[in-house]
């Protein structure tokens, strides 16, 4: 079966600016439980804005090897040259000169929560990280502003040779591994924000799983922005050697400010022969954060990569986790949920590139928009000549909750091989009066009925997430839904 499709569909519900304006501006705060901020007490804060000196300063503070300083400076040049993406959301309001690019909140990293400054510890307590660590995680890393302030990994894992640390430590302690992989999958010139990250990166996780080691409990990284007009640029590198297995989870929150913050991460993952990596994101940034992230995986023969990507927060997210299927029988999956409420744009999707025979990919995307929120599914599936007997499955469903909201689908397919199998499904549905009436006739309040339908709609993806996170995700969605009715 041959396919060459370049489809662009757009479903827009009537977009009423008027209703939007008459609604209160300040009520976004009532349902976002992580909107609090702590006193800003940096031990070091680079001056506002960005130039080559700040790039050098960041590198010098970290005591980096020369090659990394050079890499940063080159990336800064690329950043200056690169144009802003002209698609996706509105990026014109980002003022690069008004952002703080590096902010260090503690003198050193600790491995006991009690050793953290009180306000930072309180932050993580309120988010519930130490509790989660006790109950079901194999390792935890907590990044506050630019640096990872807390790190702890199960001792048994360390004995097996598993490395889980922040990227800065990795560069210091494992320079040979870092140098081999860093920036090879997502080079600085990939896009403007990857270039920016490459120039000013700080923190992020480094995960190395040796051959045959299966990490049964998840590793979790927690990213927190606390101060205003701040840019967080963590850099994550995961290497899963032959036959290994690991599940990495990241969570993100920030306080609510009237000014904008920027989060531009780069995540590179290498899944070796027959290894398996699952990367779960529960993104719940406050609604003043631009979330512009580049994530990519290289899959070798028989390797399996799963991205589980949940985007609830931020004012604008542009994120398309990718899998490059280079080895035969490699598999890639992206399961994603996007929720856009008032003044939010979630431009999310996936990229699957088939380079080898017998590879398979699966994209399942569920998006929900309400109160003028806007979601887009933007996906690319590319099958190169020779990637025979490959299979592609794309399913994107959008649920629109009211007349003000909108959902668009941009499913690009570039298929250059005949001998493959493709399935593509896309649906757009409005939260129907009939279903609401059915549930309400049973005695459910309107809010409960709407939540039940929205959670039901997301269920194919939420069931893939560890229980603790799906409960949290469902709670978040329910709060968002109550906001719409209340």
């Amino acid at each position, binding site marked *: 079966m041959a396919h060459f499709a370049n489809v662009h569909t757009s479903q827009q519900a009537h977009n009423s600016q008027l209703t939007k304006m008459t609604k209160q501006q300040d009520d976004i705060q009532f349902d976002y439980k992580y909107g609090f901020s702590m006193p800003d007490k940096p031990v070091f804060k680079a001056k506002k804005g960005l130039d080559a000196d700040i790039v050098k300063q960041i590198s010098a503070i970290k005591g980096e090897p020369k090659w990394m300083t050079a890499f940063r400076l080159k990336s800064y040049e690329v950043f200056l040259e690169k144009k802003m993406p002209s698609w996706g959301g509105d990026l014109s309001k980002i003022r690069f000169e008004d952002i703080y690019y590096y902010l260090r909140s503690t003198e050193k990293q600790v491995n006991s929560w009690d050793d953290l400054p009180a306000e930072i510890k309180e932050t993580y307590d309120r988010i519930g990280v130490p509790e989660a660590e006790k109950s079901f995680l194999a390792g935890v890393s907590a990044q506050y502003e630019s640096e990872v302030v807390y790190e702890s990994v199960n001792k048994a894992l360390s004995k097996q040779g598993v490395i889980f640390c922040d990227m800065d430590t990795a560069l210091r302690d494992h320079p040979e591994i870092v140098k081999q992989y860093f920036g090879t999958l997502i080079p600085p010139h990939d896009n403007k924000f990857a270039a920016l990250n490459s120039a000013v990166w700080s923190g992020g996780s480094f995960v190395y799983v040796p051959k045959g080691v299966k990490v049964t409990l998840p590793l979790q990284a927690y990213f927190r922005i606390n101060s205003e007009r701040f840019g967080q640029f963590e850099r994550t590198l995961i290497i899963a050697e032959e036959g290994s297995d690991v599940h990495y989870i990241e969570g993100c929150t920030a306080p609510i400010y009237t000014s904008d913050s920027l989060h531009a991460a780069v995540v590179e993952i290498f899944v070796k022969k027959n290894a398996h990596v699952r990367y779960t994101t529960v993104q719940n940034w406050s609604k003043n954060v631009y979330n512009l992230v580049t994530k990519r995986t290289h899959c070798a023969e028989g390797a399996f990569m799963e991205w589980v990507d949940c985007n609830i927060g931020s004012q604008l997210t542009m994120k398309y986790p990718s899998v490059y299927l280079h080895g035969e029988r490699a598999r890639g999956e992206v399961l994603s949920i996007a929720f856009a409420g008032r003044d939010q744009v979630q431009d999310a999707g996936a990229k699957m590139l088939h380079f080898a025979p017998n590879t398979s990919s699966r994209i399942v995307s569920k998006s929900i928009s309400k109160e003028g929120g806007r979601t887009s599914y933007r996906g690319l599936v590319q099958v190169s000549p020779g990637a025979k007997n490959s299979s592609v499955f794309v399913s994107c469903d959008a649920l629109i909750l009211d007349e003000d909201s909108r959902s668009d689908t941009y499913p690009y397919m570039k298929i250059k091989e005949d001998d493959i199998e493709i399935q593509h499904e896309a649906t757009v549905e409005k939260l129907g*009066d009939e279903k609401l009436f*059915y*549930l309400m*006739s*049973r*005695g459910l*309040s309107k809010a*409960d009925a709407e939540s039940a339908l929205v959670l*039901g*709609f997301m269920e194919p993806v939420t069931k893939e997430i560890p229980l603790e996170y799906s409960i949290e995700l469902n709670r978040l969605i329910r709060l968002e839904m109550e906001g719409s009715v209340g």
Partner: protein
Amino acid sequence: MLNLKNLKVSIEEKEILKGIDFEFEKGKTYAVMGPNGSGKSTLAYSIMGHPAYKVHEDSKIEYNGAGLTEMEPDERAREGIFLSFQTPLSLSGVKVFQLLQLALNGKKDPLKIREEAKKYAKELGISEELLNRPLNEGASGGERKKMEVLQAAVLEKDLLIFDEVDTGVDVDSLKSISKFLTKYKKDKTYIVITHYNRILHHLKPDYVLVMVSGRLVKVGGPELAKTIEDEGYKTIK
């Protein structure tokens, strides 16, 4: 218990019910019959409060003395009314247990809900597998009707309206539904909307109401259903 006074109902400006006056008494079983388009389902929807069905401002629907017309469907449900849908929807990702739990919202222990649902499913011949699937996903017409009856039983309402619970149901299923409804009738009030006499052989009505063109044209005993079966609606005036 349910009192309809000059009930006029329109959908998109078109008047479907043209003034119905009737009082339903507690504990009785009523059959509502009538040709297609006579307004039987409209009657059911307007009692439950479907937003698309506009009740005329001079009309009244009173339930145990309280006016229903201003109430939302969930408030009406809490007053004790249940509607079994003619074409029950399927709900992706929502299981019947979840639905019942949310509907009862703390009034019944979740474990008890599960126990009851399982017990009723067995009596109605609903497979355990179907019970654990999202509501009605991949279910046949007959299975959907049974699922409505199951919900009715767990929710324990006082006034139950069954909108064509017998259509699209095979003989054996019809038998098990009727048997079930008879067993759990107790002092509940049933309004059974139907085209056929079939179900009325099992579920003996106290009264048969005949609707034609949005009006209630005749009220009689069970024998009226037999007359309709033999002679159709033509002879009813």
